[in-house]
Structure formats: structure tokens, C-alpha cells
């Protein structure tokens, strides 16, 4: 029995270690330079982290920023695991707002209101990171959704380019006209491509419909957007949702290989498309961007500010960071979100937080179209967050994702799906 007693003791010790909660581990500062760790993903194909790290080091030679690589599609799962064990890096990216809430609510982020104050209102999207009057992260990218279009295919189908005056009905009509026009011109391409993410439809619906607020549990604002999307599918102006999912179509290939004349997508695609055209992974063709289609005529035209949606990508400081490094970390955040960082990012085609001061640099890059409509779409927009940040965000997103797959696959009709989603939201999410 002696052996079992020592076994039990061992278990008790282990259990008490776990129950005592987790503390943060900081890296001790090495003699000489200070080292900050920064989380990033897909380092080989996502140059923005290295750009920021190197740029900051050039401006502050006594601080090195070391990159830690995470898996792009499971970034938050891995980060949560690391944070819970106290092993997360000093500065980590807020990949989406949904998990920003998780981290902030879990007290994993340091208060960086002073950095936010320095930056003022130049950094777009800052408001999203404010909770109870304090700011917990700063944006270094502020992407928004715009309309990409293929000039060559438009010419082939004899349709006029989008000029910033389109509503969704104009867009749908153009898509259908493009499909028929392209077909008679002998092309296999379709009028438009809408990727199968829930945000493609729901993001626009929430941002553009006046008064839409999912926290009320009323999802009727989604209906017109879904009706339009289903209609485009039926008219064969857009690939079927089922085919998109089972064949894992990628939006990069659909637009880049000219299988679609138009696409609504985020501004992050500008950098990707540019790089792919240079490398040969995408066809070389003339393209441009226009403001996303609008809810109604009140926000169309280049004299107004179009409304679109998009989540900022931000940087937050690990609350468990070594006290000696806090200043350096804050400096890094200020750099990334400020004009210097924005300039560096624009140089590789990324849409930085501060778009206004880099428009000139951005549009001198090779491979980026620089017509007026494109410049307008890039620089002038009201970007609302894809979803508001609260403790209900994650739950509501899941409910709405089920609605999305059910409706787009034709399993449920729109009204039934919305009604069910509202009931589920009330019983499972909003009552907490």
C-alpha cells in the first residue's frame, strides 16, 4: 500500500498546483538589449509582422522584437492555451474582435489608454478596443470591405465599371448582366463571387441597415440581404454555396484566376492580389476597387461617405508582462499604429490603421490601381465593426453561423431560419 499512498500524495500536489491558478511568466531582460516577443502567424506568407518588427528595431536599436509563430486558422485556440498557462508572448495580435472581448474580459490585456491618447483619432477603429472608458489594444490595420472588379471581363460583357454610386440592387443587376454577357462572349466566368463566410452577408446587413443591432435579438434586418444572395445563386450569377463549401473554393483563386468579374472582399486582399500577380499565381489583368454597394442612395456617390464593415486587427500587451518591459511594449504599439508603422505597412500593400496619411505612398506601389474611384474607396469610408463586442458576441456568432449555412444551402427558408435563430438567441445567449 505504500506505493499507492505516495501516488495519492503526488496527485494531491499536482492538483493543488493547478488549482492555485495561473500566473504570468515574464522573460527576464537580457544584459544589453531588451527583447520583446510578438505573436504572428503564417510568417512565410504574411510579411506584416516582420515588417513591423524590423521597422521598430531600426527606430529603436536597443530593443529587438522576436516573432513567435502560431497556426493561422487556430491562432486563438493556441493563444488561449498559452495565456492560460502563462506562456503567451509579450505582445499579441488581436486577430478579431470576438476574441478581443475574451482576452479583455479575462484580464489578459494591459490598459494602454495612454498610448491611445497619444495616437488621437488618426488610427481608424480605435473605438472598438475601448471598454468602460479604457483602451486595451490599438489597431495596426483597419481593413474594410470593398468591391473588386475585373476591368477586362467588364469590357468583354460590355458593362460599365462601378463608379461608387451602386446600391445592392444595382450590384445584383450588374452581376446578372455580366453573367449573360460573359456567357455570350464565350467566357466561363460568372458575374460575381461571394465567399461562403457568414460575414459576407451578415457584416453588410448589420453595418448598413439603419438601426440594426443584434443585441436586441431581432434579426429581421438580415432578410433582404439573404434574399438577394439566394436570388443571385438561382440566376447562376454566383457559384452555388454547396459547391463552394465542398470544393473548398478560395476567393483568391476565384477572382485571381478570373472565374468571377466582381467580388466583395476586405481590403487585405489588395496586398495578396498584388503579390500573386507578381509571382504568377494569379492572372495578370486590370482590376480596380469601388466602394461596396450601399443600402440605399443616401450614402452613394463620391460626395458622400459610403458605409461598409470590417474588423480592425490590433495589438495588445500581455497583462502578465515583465514590468521592466512595459515601456518598450507601449512604444511598440505606438509605433505600429502611428504614422511610421502605417507607412511601413502601406509599403507592402497592407491597409494600415492610419489610411489618410499613407494614401500617397500606397498608390505609388506597382500593381495597385490608382484611378480615382479606387483611391476614394480605399481612403473614404465609414467602417463599422463586423460585430459589436460584448459577452454575447461569440454565442450570437455561432447561432448566426448556423442560420447562414442553413439558408445558403437551401435547407431552410429565410423566414424560418431567422425565426429559429431569434428563439435560440433568446434562450441560449441573450438571457445571460
Amino acid at each position, binding site marked *: *500500500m505504500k*506505493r*499507492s499512498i505516495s*501516488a495519492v500524495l*503526488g*496527485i494531491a500536489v*499536482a*492538483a493543488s498546483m*493547478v*488549482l492555485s*491558478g*495561473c500566473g504570468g511568466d515574464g522573460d527576464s531582460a537580457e544584459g544589453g538589449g531588451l527583447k520583446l516577443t510578438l505573436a504572428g502567424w503564417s510568417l512565410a506568407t504574411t510579411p506584416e509582422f516582420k515588417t513591423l518588427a524590423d521597422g521598430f528595431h531600426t527606430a529603436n536599436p536597443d530593443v529587438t522584437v522576436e516573432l513567435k509563430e502560431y497556426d493561422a486558422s487556430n491562432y*486563438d*485556440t493556441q493563444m*488561449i492555451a498559452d*495565456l*492560460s498557462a502563462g506562456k503567451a508572448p509579450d505582445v499579441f495580435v488581436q486577430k478579431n474582435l470576438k476574441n478581443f472581448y*475574451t482576452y479583455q*474580459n*479575462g*484580464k*489578459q490585456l494591459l490598459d494602454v489608454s495612454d498610448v491611445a491618447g497619444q495616437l488621437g483619432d488618426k488610427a481608424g477603429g480605435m473605438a472598438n478596443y475601448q471598454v468602460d472608458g479604457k483602451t486595451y489594444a490599438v489597431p495596426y490595420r483597419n481593413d474594410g470591405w470593398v468591391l473588386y472588379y475585373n476591368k477586362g471581363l467588364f469590357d468583354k460583357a460590355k458593362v460599365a465599371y462601378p463608379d461608387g454610386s451602386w446600391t445592392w440592387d444595382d450590384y445584383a443587376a450588374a452581376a446578372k448582366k455580366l453573367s449573360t454577357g460573359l456567357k455570350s462572349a464565350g467566357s466561363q466566368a460568372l458575374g460575381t463571387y461571394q465567399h461562403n463566410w457568414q460575414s459576407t452577408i451578415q457584416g453588410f446587413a448589420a453595418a448598413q441597415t439603419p438601426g440594426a443591432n443584434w443585441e436586441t435579438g431581432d434579426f429581421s434586418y438580415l432578410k433582404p440581404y439573404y434574399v438577394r444572395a439566394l436570388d443571385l445563386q438561382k440566376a447562376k450569377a454566383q457559384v*452555388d*454555396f*454547396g*459547391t463552394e*463549401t*465542398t*470544393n*473548398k473554393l478560395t476567393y483568391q483563386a476565384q477572382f485571381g484566376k478570373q472565374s468571377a468579374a466582381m467580388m466583395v472582399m476586405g481590403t487585405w486582399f489588395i496586398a495578396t492580389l498584388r503579390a500573386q500577380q507578381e509571382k504568377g499565381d494569379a492572372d495578370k489583368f486590370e482590376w480596380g476597387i469601388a466602394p461596396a454597394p450601399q443600402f440605399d442612395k443616401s450614402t452613394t456617390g463620391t460626395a458622400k461617405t459610403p458605409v461598409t464593415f470590417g474588423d480592425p486587427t490590433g495589438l495588445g500587451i500581455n497583462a502578465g508582462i515583465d514590468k521592466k518591459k512595459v515601456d518598450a511594449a507601449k512604444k511598440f504599439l505606438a509605433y505600429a499604429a502611428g504614422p511610421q508603422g502605417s507607412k511601413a505597412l502601406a509599403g507592402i500593400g497592407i491597409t494600415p490603421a492610419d489610411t489618410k496619411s499613407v494614401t500617397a505612398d500606397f498608390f505609388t506601389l506597382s500593381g495597385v490601381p490608382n484611378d480615382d474611384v479606387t483611391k476614394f474607396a480605399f481612403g473614404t469610408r465609414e467602417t463599422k465593426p463586423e460585430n459589436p463586442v460584448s459577452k454575447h458576441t*461569440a*454565442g450570437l456568432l*455561432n447561432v448566426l453561423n*448556423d*442560420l447562414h*449555412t*442553413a439558408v445558403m*444551402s*437551401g*435547407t*431552410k427558408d429565410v423566414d424560418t*431560419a431567422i425565426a429559429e435563430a431569434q*428563439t*435560440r438567441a433568446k*434562450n*441560449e445567449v441573450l438571457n445571460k
Partner: protein
Amino acid sequence: MAVILPARRRPARRVVRNTAIGWSFILPNFVGFGVLTLVPVALLFYYAFTDWNIFGGAQWSGLANFEQMAGDSSFWTALRNTFYYTAVHVPLTLAVSLGLALVLNRKLRGVAFFRTVAFFPYITAIVAAAQVWNMLFSPDFGPINEFLRGLGVDHPPGWTVSAGWAMPAVILVGVWRDMGYYMLIFLAGLQTVPAQLHEASTIDGANAWQRFWNVTLPCLRPTTFFVTVMLTIGSFKVFDVILLMTDGGPGQSTLVLSQYVFQKGFEENQFGYASAVSIVLFAICFLVTILQFVVNKRREA
């Protein structure tokens, strides 16, 4: 199966000695198992009664999680789907793998090749397999529906993008994947069937079916029992096949309990609630397993 020899002299000492010997065998495995599995699982039982968002401490919340579960329609959907999957997957896989083992237990020409073929699905990376099967099941362009249309079926099912056919599609892939694994176990088990028994019953005039029923099957009982238990538990716990093929969709038609746990825990950060759901899943598995143990013990007598 007992090892106690006639223990009339100093029985207590014998018991201690048996215990020591027994533990000496078990200990190497138990050290690792106890610390790495038993402790976290025990903690799970604790967390099920708390409200825990993983970062801070867990706050005791009593039965709140279970009350929430009772009124949670998604939980009941997941439970229903899990039972659906298990009820079809277990008998189907059992039949297929046993059949394969029986057929491939002979000196056929090329039997090595056929056994390897049956085992292939099990060793493929699930990531790749899910992607390939999704494509094969593609409703408009996939070869399976093209084949069905060729046979004259006008409206072939939508498979993974239709609510009614998504689960059958996933079950099919599950059987395809697991049959090799259990075939292997049955093959090993078939080695314990004494050849003499077969010869004896052939001499007695029994045909192949009678031999199977009266000789092979009874001798296979411990193996069949093991396979059934593992298959049932595995089906209740099914996770990666569903996650990678349909992610619970379309809608919630293939949402199963393990996935619901993952969603609540890692996506919505409700680890306390996720733990409570896990306990329910565990209780179901456990009860079913005990039931199987009892049935097995009774059959043995």
C-alpha cells in the same frame, strides 16, 4: 481469472503479497496515467459545477450549468445527433469489420494486399480524407452523384450540404475509416479460436454458418466485447470527422456533443458549461459501457 493458490496459511500475508505484485505490474503505466489523465479528468468533475472562463479562478455555481443545459435546445440537438450517429455507426462498422476479418483470415492469393487496402482509410490523415470525401460528395459536380445520375436517380441527395443527408454521409465516412482498425483486432482475436474445434465440428457435419455461429462467435466473445465497447465509446465521442467534414452543419444537423463541448469551451469561453456537458457525455458512455459489461458477464455464465 484468479491467481490465488490455496491460501490457508497466513492469508493476510498472501493478500498483501498479491496486492504488491499486482501493483508492481500496474505501476509503470499508472504513474503516467494517473497524473496525466486521471487528475485532469477528476478536475473536470470539479469544473462542471463552476463558472470558468479559463483565465481567472473558477467560481462555484452549483447546478447552474445543468439547469442551463436542460433548457438549451442546441444541447438536445447535439445529444440527438450523437445518438443517431452511434446507433447507425456501431452495428454497421461491427458487421463490416467482422465480415472483413472472416473473409481475409485465409490463405487467399493476395490476401496481404486486401488487408492493406482495408486498413488504408484508417491511416490516412483525417485532414486530407475529409477534404477528399467532401469533394466526392459534392452535390453538383461530385462523382458519387454523377454515378447516381448515371443509374437513373433524378435528384441525388445533397449529402454534406443537405440537412437530411449530411449525417448519413458522415457515418459512411466514419465506417470507411474505422473498419480497418477493428478488422485488425478481429483478426488477432480469430487467432484464439482453436483449429481443433473447427475440425471437430466439420467432422460432425456442421456447415460454414453453423461453424461460425457455434464455434467462432463464442470464442470471439472477449474480442467482440472489446470492439463493441470501443466502437460505442468512440461513436459517442466522435469529433474530428465531423469537425473537418461539416463543422456541425448545415445548420446544426451534424452537431454532436464533443463538438458542442469544443464550441462552448474554446469558441465561447464557457469552460464551466463545457465541462458540465462533458460530464453528461461521460455519464452516458459510462452507463452504456457498464450495461455492456453486465450483459457480457451474464452471457459468460
